[in-house]
């Protein structure tokens, strides 16, 4: 019997990557699509062989309200598995589906390895200090997958395929949506950045980030962050933080400024070609994982770098 691998992601760009991944794991890739006809066409263009179409989402419903619909569909169709886009909502949906179906949920998979008939996956544990390899043992495998593990295929708008319409299953409970407050859209694509300047807690005040942005402009780099600057301090959007629970980057240059180098952060930068650390503490762990290190006060080093780079232009 043909082995179908499904994907479900709320972000189209992530859906494209998951479809590319699903095609390597099954005989056929199917997308579960919530949206209009254009969204269906898009899924085919991204590589789907089949689309399970949930229709358009009415405004008062949350994506979460589709869990019973998805659970019923998975139960009926029994695909080999479903890759769920690891957005926050995606993680909640995957967990609830796993419990509803009594199947494995593999969280934040970094790599899929097909071993004969079985599928092995790896992900990070202990805050990035270890990689765990494991195997799903239930018939349907659910996995959450984030950006950056597989590249999307070039879109092919001529592709078409079978569309299966799916009826909505009324959930047993619903939350009432009182308000949606959009966050400013962030246009950061750290995973694709060629250079990254990453400020850490060594930055004393939010205003001082201006100097980091100026350095990044001169280097033509994207600005990343360690987690505390985005959660807790809220100085930068969360999309900017790098590490086990954030983005994985693979730039030619990573420049950490006032970053201590905890494993949770540094697992996200190991694929950088050149790593530079600026830190006033000569014992900071990031130094041992760097190619170049300057021990000193960032409030002196960064302005000096800015001047030197300006002089070069």
């Amino acid at each position, binding site marked *: 019997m043909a082995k179908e691998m499904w994907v479900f992601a709320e972000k189209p760009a992530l859906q494209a990557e998951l479809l590319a991944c699903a095609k390597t794991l099954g005989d056929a890739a199917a997308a579960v699509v919530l949206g209009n006809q254009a969204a269906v066409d898009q899924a085919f263009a991204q590589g789907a062989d089949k689309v399970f179409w949930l229709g358009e989402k009415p405004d008062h419903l*949350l994506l979460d309200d589709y*869990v019973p619909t998805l659970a019923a569909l998975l139960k009926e169709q029994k695909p080999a598995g479903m890759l769920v886009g690891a957005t926050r*909502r995606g*993680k*909640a949906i995957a*967990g*609830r589906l796993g*419990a509803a179906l*009594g199947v*494995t*949920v593999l*969280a*934040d998979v970094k790599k899929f390895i097909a071993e004969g008939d079985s599928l*092995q996956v790896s992900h990070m*544990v*202990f*805050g990035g*200090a*270890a*990689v*765990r*390899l*494991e*195997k799903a043992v*239930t018939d349907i495998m659910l996995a959450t997958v984030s950006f950056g593990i597989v590249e999307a295929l070039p879109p092919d708008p001529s592709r078409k395929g079978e569309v299966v319409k799916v009826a909505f299953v009324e959930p*047993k409970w619903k*939350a009432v*949506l*009182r*308000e*949606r*407050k959009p*966050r400013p859209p962030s246009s950061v694509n750290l995973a694709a950045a060629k250079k990254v300047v990453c400020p850490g807690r060594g930055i004393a005040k939010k205003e001082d980030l201006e100097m980091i942005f100026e350095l990044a402009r001169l*280097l033509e780099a994207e600005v990343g962050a360690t987690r505390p600057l985005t959660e*807790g301090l*809220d100085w930068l959007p*969360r999309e900017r933080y790098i590490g086990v*629970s954030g983005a994985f980057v693979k730039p*030619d*240059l990573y420049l950490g400024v006032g970053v201590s180098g905890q*494993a*949770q952060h540094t697992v996200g930068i190991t694929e950088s*070609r*050149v*790593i530079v650390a600026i830190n006033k503490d000569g014992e900071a762990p990031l*130094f*041992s*994982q*760097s*190619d*170049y*290190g*300057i021990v*000193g006060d960032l409030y*002196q*080093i960064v302005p*000096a*770098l800015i*001047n030197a*780079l300006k002089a070069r232009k």
Partner: protein
Amino acid sequence: MNIIVCYKLVPDPEDVVAKPDGSISLDQAEWIISDYDLMAIEAAVQLVEANGGKVMALSVGPSQLANSKAKKDVLSRGPDELYLVVDDGLRDADTSLTARTLAAAVAKLGEFDLILTGEGSADLYFQQVGMQLGELLGLPTFNAISKVEWSGGKLAVERSLEDEVEALEVPAPAVLAVTTDINQPRLPSMKEILKAGKKPVVEWTLGDLAVQDGLAQRVEVLSVRSPKQVNRKQIRIEGKPEEAAQALIGHLSKEGVL
């Protein structure tokens, strides 16, 4: 309101030792309350301070959980009662077994209005257990909760997603996973530390619970190893800021990354 807060006891990730052969040793590790569960505990305590009721802390795991220092630690952070399922059968439990065990324990706890969990555990950080638990119990279940208020038997919450914040009204009882920035957990006071030793603690083993679908794991762990290390040049640049800046630019331009 009665709140159950789920926390995990984990080997301190900072004590994880990578051995030369690539294997991982936890032998030296101190077992501590998972970082992000401190915010869940604090959120529960603040809600009960504001609305009355009690906080029941709940954790399931291997024998380390029964350590008296670990028990006092959690109780000194404000919960009124502690419930534990201590069983070495729960060492390396997958998210499914953990959630099913928690669900079985919750069934023994009596009336509650809210179950809180952390965002993710410090050792696995799968962000799964709370979501699976909620679905097993058939209750409204949400993650990424950055604000919770209780009024008229309902929960008014804010959910911080990537592109938007949703303000939701959630029927109680519900299961909510809170974000790491929902609050700043307080440090236990001397008074709370002294009180902690006198609070009720109930311990069960797996044999005392009816875990749905038995104790089989859904995931087979094949290996746990330290990630590949890249050897870095580790060149230290000395001198005054201006000299160091020039030297760095020199190196980077030779590397061809400027």
